[in-house]
Structures are given as C-alpha cells and as structure tokens.
C-alpha cells in the first residue's frame, strides 16, 4: 500500500539484538506486511542500548496479542507552546 495523508498510524516497538532490525524483520515481528510500515519513518532507534526500536504501522492492519509494552502506542499531534 502507499501511505496517504489520512492513514491512521500507530507506533510499535520492535527489538534488535545487534543493531536495528530491517524493515522486513520489523514487519515479521509484528506479523504485518512490510508495505504496512511507513517507509519514510523506517526503523527508528528508541534505546539502542536496550535493543529497542520503533516503526509506524498502518493501524488498520494491526492484529492483536502483542507483548506487553510493544504497542500500539499513540502518535498524537504536537504543537508549539506559544
């Protein structure tokens, strides 16, 4: 699929033992197709020392039964404090 402006996204945490997992590996961990991950976002380091990374996923493609702390997490709008 192609990511569109109105795609509802969720953040998920994926793991990597020796550096970040590839997008394919991240998709496997979440049991979604790689096309369901935001390619512009890619795999983002959250805490590399603990092997934690994040991806953005089309929320409509996510199943259930994820590990505790894996997601889905909100990706809220943010705004300047002025």
């Amino acid at each position, binding site marked *: 699929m192609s*990511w*569109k*402006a*109105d*795609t*509802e*996204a*969720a*953040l998920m*945490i994926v793991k990597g033992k020796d550096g970040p997992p590839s997008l394919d590996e991240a998709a496997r961990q979440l049991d979604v197709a790689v096309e369901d991950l*935001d390619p*512009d*976002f*890619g795999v*983002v*380091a*959250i*805490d*590399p*020392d*603990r092997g*934690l990374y*994040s991806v*953005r996923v*089309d929320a409509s493609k996510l199943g259930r039964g994820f590990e*505790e*702390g894996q*997601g*889905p*997490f*909100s*990706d*809220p*709008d*943010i*705004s*300047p*404090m*002025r």
Partner: protein
Amino acid sequence: MSIPILLLMPSSVASGAQVAAMTGTPAPGLPAGFVADTQFPMILLGDQDTQSRVSGFAAPEFAAEPQVAIRGFVDAAIEDPPQSLGGFQVFADPRIEPFQTCIGDRPVGTHDDVAERLDAAGLHELGLDGEGVAIAIVDTGINLVHLRAVMGRTPRFDAVNSWAPPNADHEAGEWPVGHGTMCAFDALIAAPAATLVDVPVLSAKLPGGGSAMSSTLSAALLAFSQMLGSWNSGRGNRDLSQYRGLVCSNSWGIFHPSWDFPAGHPGRYCDNPDHPFMLQLEAMSRGGIDMFFAAGNCGADCPDGRCQNRVVEAVMGASASIDVMSVAGCDVHEERVGYSSQGPGITGLHQMKPDITAYTHFLGSRAFGDDAPDSGTSAACPVAAGCMAAIRGRVSPRTPATPYMMYDHLRVNALVPPGRTAGWNADYGHGIIRPVPIASLFPG
C-alpha cells in the same frame, strides 16, 4: 482581627478625624471602632456627578458637603465586615497584586533585561558563552537571515548536522520566520557563541496524523533517533559528537489529553512512562544530551485556548518526564506569567513538575512582529537551554557531570521567587534559573 477599610464621609468629619488621629485626641464624628490610617491622606472623590452619586451612601445631613474617602481599620472578621459605620458606607480595601501577564499582552522588558537577570555577563567573564556546545532547536525551523538582521551578526550554525524532515521543502536555516527562529534567538541570550542545530520537527508532514497532514510525535522520534546516533558515534569529526555538549530545546507538546488515546489505554502518550517517546527521552539523557521541555501554556490564570480550560495536571507527556527539565515561565520581574502550566505533573508521570522557571514574554527575536513578545513557555525553554549550553562550555556531559547531575544543580541553585519559600512549588518548580552559581561549582 483588624482589617483595612475605606470609609466615605463628609470632608469636615474626615479632617477632624485625621487631625485627631495624628494628635491622639478623641475624634468628633468619627465612628466608634474606626481607627484612621494617619499615613493615608483623605481623598476627595471625583467631580460633581460623583459627589451626587456617593452622597447617596452618606448620612443625609451631609449630602451637600463634598465627600472624601478615608482609610482606616476596624476590628471585624474578613468574612463578615460591617456594611456601615456610624452611618457611613464601608468599602473594602483588598490586597492587590500585579496582573499576571497573559497571552496577547504587550512585552514585559527586553532580551537585554533577561540577560541581566541571568547574569549573562557573569557567565561570559567566566569564559562561558556556549562556544563548542551545540543547541538543537527542535521546533518549526530556523531562519538565519532574520537572526542576522535582529542580532547584527550571524550565529554559529551547523547545517550538516541539522535534521531534515522527509520531503522537506526548505533547507536548514532557511525555514519561514516563526516559532523556531524565536526559540533560536532566545537560546543565544546566555550562550551567544553556541552552535545552533536546526531540527524542524514541527514542520514535518508525516502521513497518519488523523484526517489531515499534521506534525505528530513520531517526527520527534525520528529526529531524536538521528541526534542520538550522531552524538554517540564517537567519531568526533563531522557529526554531533564533535561538540563538548549537546543541549536539546523543545518548546512544544500536546495541549489536551483529547489529542491522545483515551485514558486507560496502555498505548497512551500523555501519562505513560512506557511510551516509546518517553523511553527515548531516557536514552537521550542517559546518553549525555541535556533535555529541556516547555512546561506548557495551560496555567490557571489565563490558559491558552487549546487547553480547553483544563488547567489541572496540565504538565503532560515529555514535559512531565523525570528524564527532562520542564521549564515554566516568568516575566523579567520574576512574576509567573498567568499561562504557565502549574504542577503537579499528570498522574502516572513525575509529580514535581515543572522543574524550574525561566524568563519569557520579553521583546526579543521580533519573529512575530516588531512589537510582539517572545512568549509562552516556548520562550522560557530555550532561555533555560541556553544557560545549560553556557555551563557545558566548562563541564562536559562525558564527565561524571551527567545531565541528571546538572538537572539537580539547576534545581538546587535556582533563585527562590519573591514571597516563596525554598523548595518545590507548583508555580515555579524549584525556582528561577540561575546559571552562574552552577558554573562556579566547576573550576575553569
């Protein structure tokens, strides 16, 4: 208890009362129980129209005589004061305080006043001006042309290590003049020789923000990931690891929980220490990056409209993280601005938020017009970040002086605001930022 009041009375009675009070003699016509304030001159009230209006409150026999207000004291409970004394109307003389600065108000002082309050000159005498330290302005983007125009010089700028959002339509340092430029200017008040790094997260347009293209938290995740990797690379040449310190200024956040997943959802952001962004903040501070966030603009006195009048537990999300410094705002007279979010932090995150206060609402960058203030906790945050950048010129986070140690120093050495006691309070946190005492702790 003795409470202050104002009495309206004919001038002849008031004159006698004041003379009697000053000489300690009985005052003819003075109501029983009223003690005149000898320091307060009687005040003739208004013109003829006013005279006729106020005379209605006075005893009829005095109605034709000019009325005056006289201050004094009466023994009464503040909850149940008398309505009249001896036939004269009693008016309250309540305690008054300065109006708090609100969004839309004119500037209070200038950036020169801020520099003076921070003792930036004292920092510079110690050789601390931010040289060799990078300040990442995580915002809408910086406009260097504007900064050059208002500062009269070109600030140090690192285009190579600035962050570009996916599909960015501007180069680093060339974003439209606005919020990010304001923050950059304010960060340089205490650290004029620091190097700016442009991180225009708020101008990122990632899909998936709901029904419209919008800037979302994931843009910050993306940018911080690059920043952390560059800072930790250890290469020390062309990336962020070349700097003695890296201070990250964040003048953004969410204004209301309705922007987030519903309460109780395990993936919620605003009150969840396990959200990936909160985990990343911990990694940033642990990695040696000094993290500053604006506390928010949902103060009880005059909250931003986006707060939807929710002013309790208003310090949320990253601003309530234990891994960052959360910055409230005051004006150059050390008065808290009315919109500055007050603690404690949202339930689920750290309670003693905000951590500290810095100056805001001053005439500075002129990013929003020649007469418009640098305002919001948005301006306070980079002011504080600049102070840290100046200190980092002397003490690197790669020493035992970790961000957490420096956060503690900022709290402990903060100025106790006027009329407050030492320690944390909901308005100012631990007090108003003072960088020189901290710098002095570390020998040059």
